[in-house]
């Protein structure tokens, strides 16, 4: 009965070959890689992700950390947590990997945020999935107004992209505020969880576009903190993590009630999640 011709369709599970062109450790657990797709550069949108494939180990879903505006290749930043991410950590410059993507239809609002202030709330490695959007905004600086980046990490060892954060903070109309959950004699800055920075934000939160990414536990507290302000739920964007095994809306692992993180996300508007109790 099936009338669909399969002849001309590509295999959605087949990775494309890519090559590592740059690799370095950012701290003890996070590794930065720049990879080039062998068949040529992809078009992608901030917020999209890829499935990085290591033959013999498997695949891991990783948000593209670079901006399409920042030139050649794709940047990914990977924390060493499981088999695949450990294998990705072992990759050296010149080595091959497989890559599928760009995936995800729920992306960052690069158009809708034009002419607005933007507040980025990042928990730990939650900075990485937002980096694509941050870099895009900074590459198209005149299209957007003030940018505030809140970065909260657990301790000194978890800090990442410090040089980049510091470079961004010296740009006009960009404010970067870092905080450590736990005090440390080496740290003279703000101490406390990331939500304690929200009252100090030097923009009108109620009129800003707000982008949030961090560990699962963080979202609830950030949203509670934002309730103090009259923020429109249409203006809050949450980048959610799930087990995006196939990445193409089939395998069922990343389902959040009726939504598929891989297809409908991974970036969601808060207003989309009103009837999605599993989201947060």
């Amino acid at each position, binding site marked *: 009965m099936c009338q669909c011709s399969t002849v001309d369709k590509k295999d959605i599970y087949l990775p494309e070959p890519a090559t590592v062109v740059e690799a370095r450790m950012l701290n003890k657990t996070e590794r930065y890689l720049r990879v080039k797709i062998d068949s040529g550069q992809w078009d992608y949108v901030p917020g999209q992700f890829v499935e990085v494939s290591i033959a013999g180990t498997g695949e891991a879903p990783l948000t593209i950390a670079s901006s399409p505006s920042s030139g050649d290749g794709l940047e990914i930043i990977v924390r060493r947590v499981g088999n695949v991410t450990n294998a990705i950590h072992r990759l050296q410059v010149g080595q091959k990997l497989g890559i599928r993507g760009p995936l995800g239809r729920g992306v960052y609002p690069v158009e809708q945020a034009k002419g607005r202030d933007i507040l980025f709330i990042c928990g730990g490695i939650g900075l990485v999935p937002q980096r694509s959007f941050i870099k895009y905004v900074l590459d198209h600086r005149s299209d957007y107004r003030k940018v505030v980046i809140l970065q909260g990490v657990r301790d000194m060892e978890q800090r990442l992209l410090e040089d980049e954060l510091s470079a961004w903070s010296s740009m006009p109309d960009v404010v970067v505020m870092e905080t450590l959950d736990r005090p440390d004699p080496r740290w003279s800055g703000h101490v406390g969880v990331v939500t304690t920075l929200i009252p100090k934000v030097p923009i009108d939160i109620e009129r800003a576009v707000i982008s949030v990414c961090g560990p699962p536990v963080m979202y609830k507290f950030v949203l509670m903190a934002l309730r103090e302000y009259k923020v429109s739920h249409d203006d809050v964007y949450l980048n959610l993590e799930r087990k995006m095994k196939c990445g193409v809306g*089939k395998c069922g692992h990343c*389902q959040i*009630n009726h939504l598929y993180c891989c297809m409908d996300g991974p970036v969601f508007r808060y207003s989309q999640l009103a009837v999605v109790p599993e989201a947060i």
Partner: protein
Amino acid sequence: MTLLKLNKNQLNRWVEELISRQLVIGVQAKGDKFDFAPLQSWRQLRLDYDVTLQPPKQFFLPPREPLLSFAVNGGYGSVLDGQPFVLFGLHPYDLVAINQLDLIFGQDNPDIHYLKRRDAATIVAVDVMRPSKHVFASSMGTAVVEKGFDVLLTWIDDGYLVEAQTEKGNALLSSCRGGIAPTQQDLANRQKVWEHNRKHLNAYQLKCDPAYLPKLLERAYDHPIWEQRAKTCFSCGSCNLVCPTCYCFDVRDVVALDLDKGQRQRCWDGCLLDGFTKVAGGHEFRKARADRFRHRLYRKAKYVPAKIGGQIACVGCGRCVGACLPDIANPVAVFNELLDQLGIS
């Protein structure tokens, strides 16, 4: 469309002819139960079965299949299986399930591994002659089908009424010797079978139109029934395993002993299993047993229907009812209890 009436001998000879030409997977006895398996002879075929142990999804989405082959040091290739075969003896409810999977694997990002197998299959359905102990296809509107098959067989007391509805079906029927054009009486007799099955494949009566179920579930999310029922759930995933519309899968890399090459394999997974939503680092997004139990029924009657034009993704085969040891899986029992308590609004 071709219509033909065959007596038992003519059907047997046709089946024998098909077996001599190609792979024919048909329903056979397995102990005192039934299952699908390749046929060696028409004698093995049991069209009077009640229900098969396993649903037919395995022939399009095998329990384990290679998606890709790879060399550990680079290079991936698709592994596709397009061997033509005949799937003989599907009941209408199982056919509905396959047609739902066709929509799911064909939409958005088409899955050529599934679709290639599906294209290679010719499906011969058969109207139910003996209802199974737990069937409730009448409640779900899946007891009888008018489309979705290549060939449909209906036993009408003195022979089979055979209808081919597609080119594949006609091609299959072209190798059939004998048979006569059915009379008006034969067609009327087939209608009688359909009318009977529409009412009587119903060990459990759903107390609403199945089309109402998505609306019912809109009001049932926080109902205590999920916790109550899931209290005795073993999280064994048997309900997922035997369900003709469950299709969730895991993907694993398997390296050959030479450590140089391997396969990326897809294997069935189940949303009832602990760990289904666990990510690297250990966080599990749907950890509570009751939440997993609820998720399965929401998939069947709310989430998947929204993807396939409103069809309910429970076809009433009743396999999960028989497979569930603590006897909590019966979708009709769950929906009826919710209907009793929440009413229809």
